[in-house]
């Protein structure tokens, strides 16, 4: 198991956090292109889901292929509560998170006990079936056409978060909160218990750490994170449909986490940014350069991109199991 983990450090290294905060807050000022700010928002939202998934993968060795569904539960719950029940965003978001967490708890309760990645397969079923429910349950979800009414943007008192720039800061405030919470959790008693479970379940059991209970907690937390992210997405996009919550998104998230670095909170953000920006960069290059038409067409085809993700994941899990972040880690250590 060690192979998939970064070293657990006792002290939170404060400089990278400050660096990140600095970059986050300056980025929209340096680059006020709305399209780029939109990308910043989406990377922020996806990172929240990825952090939860990474906590699960890196610290309990369990896989979830249903994060897209929890993300969707968050989005739809938030949408329905604000539109139908007149909740404010600040009330709807916690409800969405709790609801996603509850469903996660039920699914985890059934499947987290077993060895052999039962959780992965159960969440996969859940992810696929969630899509069906979204499409079939038209009176509540709006069916294939998406949620029929416009989801309101949040506001704080009279201050309306109505443009991309403001929403960007809102999302990143949430992300930093989730980031710090997770970092602290990993360092806390719970984090050490998880470490013990991951190292050797039997020994953990003997010293009084109940492996299943901890796995279930972490899985539920990952569902809660996805619910928060879903709510943030719904109020940003103001329109949601089944397209955004397909099973394929769960797979992409898994790729993001593996490529970024398992068991490393930074890895979640790095992986998300890399995989989210990669298609954008490819598209940009394709548009800019005078590549032959054949290659341009290939670059536009989505399947090639996914194919590349598949190969990346395979290469990373075989040769670089600690992801991009692990690479930097080792590089730093060799130099020191």
């Amino acid at each position, binding site marked *: *198991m060690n*192979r*998939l983990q970064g070293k657990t450090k006792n002290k939170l290294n404060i400089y990278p956090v400050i660096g990140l905060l600095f970059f986050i807050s300056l980025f929209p000022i340096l680059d006020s292109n709305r399209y780029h700010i939109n990308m910043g928002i989406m990377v922020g939202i996806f990172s929240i889901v990825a952090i939860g998934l990474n906590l699960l*993968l890196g610290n309990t*060795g*369990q*896989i979830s*292929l249903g994060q897209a569904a929890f993300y969707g539960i968050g989005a739809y719950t938030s949408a329905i509560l604000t539109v139908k029940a007149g909740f404010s965003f600040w009330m709807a978001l916690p409800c969405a998170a709790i609801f996603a967490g509850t469903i996660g708890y*039920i*699914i985890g*309760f*059934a*499947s987290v*006990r*077993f*060895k*052999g*990645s*039962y959780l*992965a*397969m*159960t969440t*996969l*079923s*859940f992810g*696929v*079936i969630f899509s*069906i*429910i979204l499409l*079939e349950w038209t009176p509540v979800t709006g069916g294939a056409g998406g949620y029929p009414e416009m989801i309101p943007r949040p506001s704080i008192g009279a201050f309306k978060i109505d443009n991309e720039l403001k929403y960007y800061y809102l999302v990143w405030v949430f992300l930093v909160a989730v980031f710090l919470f997770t970092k602290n959790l990993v360092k806390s008693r719970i984090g050490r218990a998880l470490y013990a479970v991951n190292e050797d379940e039997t020994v953990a059991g003997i010293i009084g750490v109940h492996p299943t209970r901890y796995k279930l907690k972490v899985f539920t937390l990952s569902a809660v994170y996805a619910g928060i992210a879903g709510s943030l997405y719904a109020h940003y996009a103001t329109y949601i449909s089944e397209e955004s919550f397909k*099973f394929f998104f769960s*797979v992409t998230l*898994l*790729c993001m986490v*593996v490529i970024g670095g398992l068991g490393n909170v930074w890895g979640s953000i790095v992986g998300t940014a890399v995989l989210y920006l990669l298609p954008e960069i490819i598209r940009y290059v394709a548009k800019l350069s005078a590549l032959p038409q054949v290659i341009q067409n290939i670059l536009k*085809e989505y*399947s*090639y991109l*996914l*194919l590349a*993700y*598949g*190969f990346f*994941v*395979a290469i990373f*899990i*075989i040769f670089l*199991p600690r992801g991009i972040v692990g690479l930097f880690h080792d590089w730093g250590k060799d130099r020191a």
Partner: protein
Amino acid sequence: MPLQDILQLLVGGITNGSIYSLVALGFHLIFRSTGAINFATGEQVVLGGVLAITLTTVLKLPLAVTFVATFFLAGMIGLVYERLSIRPVIHFSELSIVISSIAVSIILQNSIALVWGKEHIAFPPFTKGNPVKALGAVIELQSFWIVGIAFATVILLKLFLDFTLLGKFVRATVNNRTAAKLMGINTTRVVAFTFALSGGICAMAGMVVAPVTFAGGALGTMMAVKGFVAAVVGGLSSSSGVVLGGILFGILEFFIAGFISSGYRDALALFVLLIFLIVKPTGLFSSDQKK
């Protein structure tokens, strides 16, 4: 509900169930030999369908030859899959194996989409003719093919595992990899062989189901889900269990769809899975103790 409707549902259930049985067998073999769930199973089913279509329509091979050729081609792809992505990580952890198999499933799915297109491809039924009527139930001819091929596959597999040396190696490895290794069996090779076998069996499922559901598209994920649920219903660690589980789940699915609602037929799989995992995680027909 009149008897003929019940019979009709039973026929449909058994037909679909035999396909689930084959997929569940694919899961079972790899679960027992590596301890992990093979996430590329669904795509291997789809692969069988598209390979068979290419062999019959492009190369104009006769049906019998297509069967054998698809089985062996898919088996070879299974071997390559094991060699390139499972063997390098098999000693690290189960998590690595699972992630690796997910990577392969992404690769297979998109390769299939690129080579054969994203749309479903139609595959003519193996034999043309009017459906057979028996006791008021209408049975499509393809149903006979599906059930027949599934039965033949299961019986041949059983014979192979029981009466050939290689089959006995597989059984020994599947029962206890360490003990098998101590007895001088080259378990690395046997694990590779189970991947070939499982790939071949899944391809058979994909081939017989192609005329009914078409091939390609998003079929794979659903097949993997249903096959896995079938395996859990029967007991993932027992080979006869998964086969019976497949049939049983197929029948259950048709009856629920017939009595309650067909729109949510696919959603049923999740509920069956959750109930079984909570109440009877070893499955209905598993003979051995809880793992």
